[in-house]
């Protein structure tokens, strides 16, 4: 007689292996984990990137974005402050604002029943509040001040606007720590950013697979073959990664090693690159020395979902927005600076080819998360291995390490309480 064998019970979030070197696959697949992340991480005590200060330069400017699933309106009010509040009407929950961005906005009116809000998110008007001819209307007991969309705390660092739903989140300076702050300052400090373009890349994978990829310095020279194929790697590069104490933020960098460069036969290196150069138009990589520190690449991430990128002169911020368990929006904003010369601006436009959805050294990151999502489809009980470079989540002078990926999971588990 046939016997029906029941599958084993699925793991619950309590079943996380000891240490930081294993990641169970259900964490990328489970709907209840996704819901829990919304509550604990996205609504929890973290700072989330919302916009650039230059995108809201004048009073009346506004834009809409998301923190996780939650729609958010960000405004610049007439008192010259930046505000953000949930894009959800206090009446019956409709979106208050349907536009992506705009100017000269004095108030926001919900289309459904015209409840009205000021740019700080206060409920200021209710249509037919007193009814018509003494009939209908809201009861006297209804107090407008007691109703409104949730307001966010705002913090601005070097032109980046962050928001948080949490009253418990530490100050942004404390949250980021000095090292991360310094590396943000290195790219953006004291400069007026200019938006050069915005693109959204729709990733067929869980948001954490993209964050792992950003923090994974191990894959860079293996998955992305552009520099290797065209023999554009310099012989004398040094690099490393910085992982902050929480594990959640990181910096990965590579720089020209000027000491080593003196040692190697420099003429020979020049010869090598000239004779085997394979780019038909090598001006793509003609960079200008923007930071005077020889650092050609700096990828910086802030937990949970923000990335600041400098790849030569291609500067961009990336905002990662989870849309479903297996779907993620990656919002790219390409940047220049107000004092760019025409030549410098052209260099940035050309080097834009390195990054984004069609980037020579980033296009693979758009699909590789999907390869994992599809690969693990039947294996929620199995685990990823993260042992490259040891078991810790510390800064390192080698980039052949998964330390910052382990760091991400350290911060993630602390947030999730698992």
């Amino acid at each position, binding site marked *: 007689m046939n016997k029906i064998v029941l599958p084993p019970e699925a793991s619950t979030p309590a079943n996380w292996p000891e240490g930081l070197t294993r990641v169970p696959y259900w964490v990328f697949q489970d709907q209840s984990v996704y819901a829990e992340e919304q509550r604990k991480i996205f609504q929890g005590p973290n700072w989330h990137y919302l916009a650039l200060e230059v995108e809201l330069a004048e009073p009346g400017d506004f834009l809409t974005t998301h923190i996780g699933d939650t729609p958010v309106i960000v405004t610049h009010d007439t008192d010259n402050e930046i505000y953000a509040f949930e894009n959800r009407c206090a009446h019956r929950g409709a979106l208050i604002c349907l536009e992506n961005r705009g100017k000269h906005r004095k108030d926001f009116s919900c289309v459904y029943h015209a409840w009205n809000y000021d740019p700080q998110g206060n409920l200021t008007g209710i249509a037919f509040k007193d009814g018509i001819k003494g009939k209908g209307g809201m009861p006297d007991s209804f107090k407008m001040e007691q109703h409104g969309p949730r307001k966010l705390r705002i913090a601005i660092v070097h032109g980046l606007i962050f928001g948080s739903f949490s009253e418990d989140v530490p100050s942004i300076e404390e949250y980021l720590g000095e090292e991360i702050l310094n590396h943000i300052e290195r790219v953006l400090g004291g400069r007026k950013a200019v938006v050069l*373009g915005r*693109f959204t890349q729709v990733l067929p994978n869980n948001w954490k697979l993209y964050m792992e990829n950003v923090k994974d310095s191990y894959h860079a020279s293996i998955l992305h073959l*552009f520099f290797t194929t065209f023999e554009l790697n310099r012989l004398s590069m040094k690099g490393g990664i910085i992982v902050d104490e929480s594990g959640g933020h990181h910096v990965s960098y590579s720089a020209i090693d000027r000491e080593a460069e003196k040692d190697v036969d420099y003429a020979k290196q020049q010869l090598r690159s000239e004779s085997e150069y394979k*780019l038909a138009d090598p001006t793509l990589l003609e960079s200008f020395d923007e930071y005077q520190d020889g650092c050609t690449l700096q990828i910086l991430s802030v937990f949970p979902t923000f990335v600041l990128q400098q790849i030569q002169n291609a500067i961009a911020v990336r905002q990662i927005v989870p849309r479903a368990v297996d779907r993620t929006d990656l919002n790219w904003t390409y940047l220049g600076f107000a004092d760019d010369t025409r030549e410098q*601006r052209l260099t940035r436009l050309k080097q*834009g080819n390195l990054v984004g959805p*069609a980037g020579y050294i980033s*296009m693979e990151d758009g699909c590789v998360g999907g390869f994992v999502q599809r690969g693990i489809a039947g294996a929620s009980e199995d685990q990823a291995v993260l042992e490259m470079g040891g078991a810790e989540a510390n800064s390192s002078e080698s980039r052949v390490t998964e330390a910052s990926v382990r760091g991400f999971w350290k911060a993630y588990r602390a947030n999730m309480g698992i």
Partner: protein
Amino acid sequence: MHANSLQYITKAQADYARCIDDDRLEEWPSLFHGPCLYKITTASNYRDGLEAGIVFANSRGMLTDRVSALREANIYERQSYRHILGLPSILSEDGAKVKSETPFMVARILQDGDTSIYATGRYFDVYEIVDGVAQLHERTVVCDSSRIDTLLALPL
């Protein structure tokens, strides 16, 4: 308006689409003439005057490099496009220089057969008509949507 411009441009458009859809990417750079400008952007960037492209090339060499990278360096799932082009509109004509706008729809066919409308938009082109041939000098590909599914490998 030169009576034949529309006809010359229509032929150039058809050749361009077939070149990509037939996977003859090595020939794609030779469809551009003169100083050469090729850019892929979105309707909202285009409207706001934002300069950056998803792809930006201001020389034929950069187009050649794009093809070499796709062939030799970049990793992506095998895929092909089917371009469906609408009729070109002539926007302006100045001697042999003709500007046109042509709507397109591109379906992407992945290796497992999954087919989707990958992009819709407009080509803003600058042609020079030389001996009855419309030579493409500039193409700005303006995608209607700002969202790109997974990645953009093949040119539009």
